C-alpha cells in the first residue's frame, strides 16, 4: 500500500471532524472520495500530507511515517502532490515560475534545470505556450492545470486532489478532467475528493463514501453508484445526480 492511514481522528476545538478513518490506497489506484459537505473528506486528504495534524492515528505514505517527529516533512511532501479547489497559484510569478519554484528550492535543481523540468511539466498539461503568463492572465481551467503541473513537476508518488473542478465554470471542467485522466493513464496514484460523478464512474478504481467523519462504505464505482448498501449513500447519490 503506498498510502496507509489508520484510525485517523481530527478535532477542531469541540468539533470532531474525523472519527477514526482507515484508508489504504494501492499503487496506481485512483480512489474517489465523495460525501456531503462537512463529512470530513477534505480534512482527511489534508491529514495525508500533514497540512492538518491528525489528533490521533497513523499515516504512512510511500513507506514514510508522516506523523513521526523525526520525519523531514518538507522532504516527505515532495512525494505527495496536492491540487486545491482555489488553485492557489502564486500571483506574482509566471506559470513557469510557479512550477519551477519548488524544483529549485526543494529539489535543489539549478535554474536552467528547473526551467527545463518546469516546461516539461507544463507541456504535460498542454500549457507550454503559456509559460510566461501570470496566473491572472489565464482562465480558471488553465490555472488549475498549471497547479497540477506545479505538483507533478516534483514527480510525486501520490497526487491528492481537493475538489479540483468545484471553482470552475462548467465549460472549463473538461480540460482539467482530461489532464487528470492522462495522469491516471500514466499510472499515477490519485486520491480525488470531487463531485464529478461521471468522471468517477469511468476513471475511478474505487469510490469511498464518507459521512459525518467516517467512511460509511466503499467499492467499485458501479457498485456504489448503482447499488449502495447504505440509505445515506443512496440519498447522497440521488441528490448529486438530480443536479
Amino acid at each position: 500500500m503506498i498510502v496507509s492511514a489508520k484510525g485517523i481522528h481530527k478535532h477542531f476545538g469541540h468539533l470532531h471532524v474525523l472519527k477514526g478513518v482507515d484508508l489504504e490506497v494501492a499503487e496506481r489506484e485512483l480512489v474517489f472520495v465523495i460525501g456531503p459537505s462537512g463529512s470530513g473528506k477534505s480534512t482527511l486528504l489534508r491529514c495525508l500530507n500533514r497540512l492538518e495534524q491528525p489528533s490521533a492515528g497513523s499515516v504512512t505514505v510511500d513507506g514514510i511515517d508522516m506523523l513521526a517527529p523525526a520525519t523531514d516533512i518538507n522532504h516527505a511532501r515532495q512525494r505527495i502532490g496536492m491540487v486545491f479547489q482555489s488553485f492557489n497559484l502564486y500571483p506574482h510569478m509566471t506559470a513557469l515560475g510557479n512550477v519551477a519554484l519548488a524544483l529549485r528550492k526543494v529539489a535543489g535543481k539549478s535554474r536552467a534545470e528547473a526551467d527545463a523540468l518546469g516546461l516539461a511539466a507544463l507541456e504535460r498539461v498542454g500549457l507550454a505556450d503559456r509559460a510566461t503568463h501570470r496566473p491572472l492572465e489565464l482562465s480558471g481551467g488553465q490555472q488549475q492545470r498549471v497547479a497540477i503541473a506545479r505538483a507533478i513537476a516534483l514527480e510525486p508518488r501520490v497526487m491528492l486532489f481537493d475538489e479540483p473542478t468545484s471553482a470552475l465554470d462548467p465549460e472549463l471542467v473538461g480540460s482539467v478532467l482530461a489532464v487528470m485522466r492522462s495522469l491516471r493513464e500514466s499510472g499515477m496514484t490519485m486520491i480525488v475528493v470531487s463531485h464529478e460523478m461521471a468522471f468517477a464512474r469511468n476513471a475511478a478504481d474505487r469510490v469511498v463514501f464518507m459521512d459525518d467523519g467516517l467512511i460509511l462504505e466503499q467499492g467499485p464505482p458501479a457498485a456504489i453508484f448503482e447499488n449502495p448498501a447504505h440509505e445515506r449513500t443512496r440519498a447522497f447519490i440521488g441528490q448529486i445526480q438530480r443536479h
Partner: protein
Amino acid sequence: MSSWDRFTDTFFNAKVMAKYWPDILYGVGVTVELAVLIVVSGLLAGLALALIRALAIRPLNWLIIFIVDLFRSLPPLVIIVLIYFGLPAADISPSGFVSTWLSLALVLMAFAEEIFWAGITSIPKGQWEAARSTGLGFGQTLTNVILPQALRLTIPPLTNRTIAITKGTALGTVVAVSEILGMASSAMSNSYNPSPLMMGAAAYLVLFLPVVVAGRWIEKKFAWKR
C-alpha cells in the same frame, strides 16, 4: 515704506538671509542624515518584528504587540524627551541627535511592523498551503511566496507613514539638534527677524515635496494591482 515692503523686509529680509543661509544649509544636511537613518533603521526593525511575529511564538508576540502599541500611542515628542532627559539617569547620555533618531526610528518601527504584519496576514492561507505542500519550508514560503506579495501591498501605507514620521525630525529642536528648524529658530532669535524660518520652510518643501510626489506615484503604481 509701503506695507508690502514692510512684509518682505520682515519675512524675506535679504541681508538676514544672506547671513544665515549657510546655517540653514547645515541644518538641511543634519535633517537628511537623520531622516535616512530613521527610515532605514525603522523600516528594517519593523520588518524584523513582523517576521518574528509570523513565527507565532505566543509570549514573543505579546511582547511585540505591547511594544508596538506603546510606541504607536505615545507622542514622538514625549519619547524624545524621555530618552534625552530620562536615560542619563541610567548613566547613558545620548546626544540630542541620537535621542531623536532612536525615538523616531522606534515610532516608525512600530507603525511599520503593523503595516508589514497586515500585509503578511492579508495573503490567503491557500498560498501558504500550496507552497508547503510542495515541500517548501516555513522560511522559504515566507521569503519566496508570502513577502513578495505582502510587501507590494504595504508600499502605499508605508510611504505615507514614513513621510509623516520623517517630518518629525523637526522635533529634534527641543533637544538641541541642529536640524533645519533648530538652525532656523536660533537664527531667528539672533537676528530678531523671521526670515530664517521662511528659508527653513523652503528647505522643507525642497526636501519633502519630491518625496511626497514620489510617494503618490508609488502609491498609484502599486495600489491594489496584483
